[in-house]
């Protein structure tokens, strides 16, 4: 099962995210948790979220990037769902061996994420904390998918990105290279 954890505060107002999610929503064996719609008061149902994670083979974190980071709700989801003793730490092997795919949209053009661009840093620098979150939980980090300039590019460009995502998820098989890099619980103790 593929679990999509979708975090957009105003899903209907979204330009890119709505199309991306719409393209994969009807795939078989997929579950979508749109956090801002499920828990508008940040009252995340931890048990339900953990149960869904348990069932999943691939966990997709999908959201727009704003202020170089995940939306507040997804950060809160990390905080209350990925608990010590469950997702990491002693006995925390619930996510061990599962795969994680990060799907994001950004407002800046590809060229803005460079030393010479307005954001002054390569996009790769902003990936690190998210990747490490997944790795710390023993998940295999799949090559992330990023759509830059989400409100600058044309509708066609968004549509083709959506198709690419649909294609990737519908044909998804665990990436052997990602498996090789999985962090084992005793690797760093």
């Amino acid at each position: 099962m593929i679990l999509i954890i979708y975090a957009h505060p105003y899903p209907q107002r979204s330009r890119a995210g709505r199309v991306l999610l719409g393209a994969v929503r009807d795939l078989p064996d997929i579950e979508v948790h749109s956090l801002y719609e499920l828990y508008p008061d940040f009252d995340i149902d931890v048990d339900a979220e953990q149960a869904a994670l348990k069932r999943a083979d691939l966990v997709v974190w999908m959201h727009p990037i704003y202020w170089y980071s995940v939306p507040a709700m997804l950060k809160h989801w990390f905080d209350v769902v990925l608990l010590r003793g469950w997702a990491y730490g002693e006995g925390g092997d619930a996510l061990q061996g599962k795969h994680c795919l990060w799907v994001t949209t950004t407002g800046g053009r590809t060229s803005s994420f460079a030393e010479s661009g307005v954001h002054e840093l390569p996009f790769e620098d902003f990936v690190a904390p998210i990747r490490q979150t997944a790795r710390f939980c023993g998940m295999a980090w799949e090559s992330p998918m990023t759509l830059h300039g989400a409100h600058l590019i044309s509708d066609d460009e968004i549509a083709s990105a959506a198709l690419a995502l649909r294609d990737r998820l519908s044909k998804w098989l665990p990436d052997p290279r990602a498996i090789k890099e999985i962090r084992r619980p005793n690797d760093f103790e």
Partner: protein
Amino acid sequence: MILNDALIYLAAAVICVPIAWRFKLGAVLGYLVAGILIGPWGFNLVSDVDSIVHFSEFGVVLMLFVIGLELEPGRLVEMRKSVFGGGALQLALSGTAIALGAASFGLGWKAALVVGAALALSSTAIAIATMTERNFLPTPTGQSSFAVLLFQDIAAIPLLAIIPLLGVAALSGVGDEPSAPGWLAFGKAFGAIAMVIVIGIYFTRPLLRLAAKTRLREVFTALALLLVIGIAQIMSLVGLSMGLGAFLAGVLLASSEYRHALESDIEPFKGLLLGLFFISVGMTIDFGLLVSQPGKVAILVTGFLTLKLVTLWLTARIIGVTSRQRWLFAILLSQGGEFGFVVFGVARTVGVLSREWADLLNMTVALSMTTTPLLLLLHDWWNARIECAGGGKRDADEINEKDTRVIIAGFGRFGQIVGRLLFANGIDAVVLDHDPDQIELLRKFGYKVFYGDASRLDLLNAAGAAQATLIINAIDDVDDSLLLSDVVRENFPNLKMIARARNVMHYVGLRSRGVEVIERESFEAALKAGRHSLEALGIDRFRARDMANIFRRHNIRDLEARVSDFSDEASRVSAAKAGRDELSALFARDREQFESDQSSDGWH
């Protein structure tokens, strides 16, 4: 005639007690002085002193009932060690020392033994009234003192039974009880106690519930008094201490929902009768003896007090009272008790004591009662001096006052949800409600709910408002709710209030009384329904939440503005209209900002 006497007693109390209070001498001394002034050796204003003494002893009975109410059976079991250990030790030490002292005055061994045992007893009335006045009863030392007093009350019963056996004179003058065979008396006593327990457990609660349902407070009060008087009568019929019976009844009702209501209904009667008791003690002091034998009286009083203080101090040391409070413990229990009068009376009738000695000893007891407040003043003064010298360092008393932190006033739809959230998280609260049916039901579910009108000061005091952190005002009735906030603000300025408002006017009323945390009972729920409506119309859930948040903030600001000028009807209406216009403008501005954010650099 009765009214005339009442006039004199009340006037004497009203004049003397505030004066004593003003000079920090304590109410007990005030009453005693009032008694001396109106008694035969003062202005001789009252005629029938003996019957007043007899009547006012009922104040002691009521006091023991109230003490019993405050003591749940569980705690009584916990206290058994200090009652039977500390109490027996004190009686043995003080009794032996005083008996030896009495023997040195030339009394026979029998008389000396009776005097020793009788004078070892302290005055429950004076000791407890003084401790309550100083809020000392809930402290560990206060509890130790109470344990000793409780043991003395129990010990007084066999003591009274033994005296006639020591008698040399014929028993004819004593009455019937002592001549009855021992096993019969024992059987009667056992029967009476069993009866009190059965009544206390099975009959009082349904009766109190019926009385509470009438919602007539005087019926409830009358039943409470009837209960105590009835039990006292049962006990005295078989020659047991009325106070002990009342205490037992109190303990049996301590875990009932009517505990606080009973306590606050009995309290004024208890206070007045106890005052009358102290007055009557003052009246019975025979100053004639003081005039004819001043030297002997002085020696007896000082000798008695010295022996008793020293033995009490030793007791305190052995039972582990902190060194700082040993003298306090000794002084509190130093006086002779009201049982002394009874014992000396019986001892004289059976010929164990001569009339002269009985009078002298009565005098000693009465005078020793007046010395307690004076010794306490001396103790305070001495302590203050030591503290000044020692840099004012002092450990706070460890107060185990029922640990009330939260009081919930009103346990209807609203209070229940607050209470359940607290209980579920292990926070105990004292709940006050005035609906007997509701209480019955909730107690079945294991809640600690007490019957009573929460806006009454005495009930709040009984529920522990003085040391609580928080009171939740969830009373249905708007007027009662406002009254409660007045009472709390006036009497417990440090008690934080969280209030439920039924509507805007109620909110304004609470706010203008200085209540800071108020929740309108329907506001949050209506706001939530508004959010659901926006969602049903296709608006994102989180966006609907934003809108509700803006609305809430504006609404409360608007309400607060109304609080400040709520006296002016015209400005209230115009403020409401201005508020509405302002809110529309606010939403328009927000909408515009929201749209433009999306088109530029917001969430994609």
